[in-house]
């Protein structure tokens, strides 16, 4: 037997597209949707895969990254999945892709208006660890009552002297909804603000979709006397020499020697190619 184009049947894709339109219309709001059981496990990108499946057309060029890299096994597996069930062209080049599905990173290369970034989201509710009851958090969002989060950040400052959240750092979208940027490092948060590319977020297990439309204001929560700051390294990438990219720390021998390299493999590769040329 053969599967429908991009696995999902057209009725399911229509349901997803409707939910996505609603998400775009209310930036940062978590839209409940009838998440389907996908042939990949929950927690491995089922939300992102459903969003991608609903958007893909035969002419799309798909890039899939995990931790910024195209060659991690989960990224390879999801790319294989869509090559198999949709037959679309895939690429590792950020600039060539029309649709990029990502887990935990935003590419270093600036995105364009004709590109869509799809995030895999494990936990869409930014308040979940502070308030596990969904019936409660829904009310807090309705009232835009984000005191819980501000208190948590304040307590960090009181205890550690600064905000101790390094990834999945909460943002306020369009001045209204407190939103999880998914577990990207806070280093990537500034890329969410006024992005020319549409950003869609899919949480399959939690059955929620949300969106940051192009050119939307996205603020990372902070205080006047404790402004938001991103991670920085003293090192530069040992492969391409970049001083502006997010670096992975790699242990290279059994004495614990470390080196630092770009987490975005395409960005690093392009830079090295330029140097050689």
């Amino acid at each position, binding site marked *: 037997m053969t599967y*429908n184009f991009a*696995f999902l049947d057209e009725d*399911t894709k229509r349901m997803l597209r409707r939910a996505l339109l609603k998400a775009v219309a209310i930036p940062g709001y978590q839209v*409940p*949707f*009838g*998440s*389907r*059981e*996908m*042939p990949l*496990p*929950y*927690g*491995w990108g*089922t939300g992102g895969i459903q969003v991608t499946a609903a958007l893909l057309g035969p002419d799309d060029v798909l890039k899939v990254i*995990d*931790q910024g890299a195209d*060659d991690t*096994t*989960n990224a*390879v*597996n999801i790319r*294989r999945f869509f090559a198999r069930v949709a037959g679309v062209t895939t690429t590792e080049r950020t600039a060539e892709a029309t649709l990029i599905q990502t887990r*935990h990173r935003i590419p270093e290369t600036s995105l364009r208006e004709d590109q869509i970034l799809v995030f895999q989201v*494990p936990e869409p509710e930014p308040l979940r660890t502070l308030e*596990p*009851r*969904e*019936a409660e958090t829904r009310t807090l969002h309705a009232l835009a009552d984000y005191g819980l989060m501000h208190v948590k950040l304040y307590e960090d400052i009181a205890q*550690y*002297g*600064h905000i*101790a959240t*390094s*990834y*999945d750092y909460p943002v306020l979208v369009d001045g209204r909804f407190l939103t999880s940027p998914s*577990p990207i*490092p806070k*280093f990537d948060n500034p890329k969410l603000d006024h992005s020319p590319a549409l950003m869609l977020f899919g949480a399959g*297990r939690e*059955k929620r979709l949300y969106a940051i439309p192009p050119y939307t204001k996205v603020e990372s929560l902070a205080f006047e006397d404790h402004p938001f*700051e*991103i991670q*920085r390294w*003293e090192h530069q990438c*040992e*492969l391409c020499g970049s*001083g502006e990219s*997010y670096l*992975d*720390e790699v242990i290279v021998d059994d*004495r*614990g*020697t*470390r080196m*630092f*390299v770009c*987490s975005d*493999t395409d960005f690093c590769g392009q830079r090295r190619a330029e140097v050689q040329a």
Partner: protein
Amino acid sequence: MYVAVKGGEQAIARSLELLAEARRGNPAVPELELAQIREQLRLGVARVMQEGSLYDEELAALAIRQAAGDMLEAIFLLRAYRTTLPRFGYTLPLDTTAMRVRRRVSGTFKDIPGGQVLGPTYDYTQRLLDFDASAPANVAAADAPLPPNMPRVLDLLDAEALIERFEPGDDPEPIDLTREPVTFPADRATRLQNLSRGDEGFLLGMAYSTQRGYAESHPFAGEIRMGEVDVVVCPEELGFAIEIGSITLTECQMINQFHGGNGVPPQFTRGYGLTMGEGERKAMSMALVDRALRCDELAEPNYAPAQNQEFVLSHSDSVEASGFVQHLKLPHYVDFQAELSLLRTLAAQHVSDARNPSGEQGEVGSVGPDAALSQEPDPTPTLPCEQGKEPSEALRT
């Protein structure tokens, strides 16, 4: 020189080959036929159909073989396949009163109209390993056939108005949990649907907790029945009901004490469990958990995990739970690097604070860790602590 990790594609291909080899085992041993699994591992097939939410013995047997007997993996396979099936419509409510009963027992009355019918049960096997199970079973026919319609035990109490009453059609039209997400608070029909798809082990543990003081429970097994029930649909284009086959079901009706409250007089209350195929342990567990989850409706104190519907319903599904627990083996280099960096900052600050107890807190990255670390040679030369410092403009090159 570091070489970036490549070859994920090839690694996956090799892994699939190893998996196929391991699944097949010794090729000198004949491969299991689906009919063997269907006929001889019927309880495993029933569980996979039940939690896979797809009543198809052949596909369940295929999934069990493909999953090498890992039931949760087989359930996952069936669920993923189910996603691709078109939805023709919904059946009419099943009438379990008209079940062609093969087993029916009650823990509340010694004798009941229609009698106690043990049927095929492991309950009285004494669990001795049978080293020669190859001899064919010799089944003697009963003296008289079972009555075609077995009255339900709880209806006997109902006649005396001692147990709460639910009229057919009282419930609102249930949502389809496989098409719509659950929202809280969830009504009982939605909760039952969730429990019915839930993991047997999880429900068993939850049910057990209600018997050990983590909820007001006091249950009696009013009736457990297992047998075949007709499935009837009423296609719009036909306008009348047609029978499309029959399926095996196990139903459990628990009877629970209730002292009265919320405007309801003291009476017995009901907990309900239903599974596809033979699944008595699951049906009983489900009935106990169902009753515990009715605590708010009955104005009972709500304090135990099994009474917390968000807790129970959000964690009952094995496909969701198994996927998310196991996603931890996926790469988390990026978040881990972020945490590592943060932890190094905190550790440096801790050293600084210890040396300078009266010193100001905060201002990390400006003087704190730098000053502390510069007082002695770097204690861990291979570990670049500096890169973990709190960001500051000075660090930016």
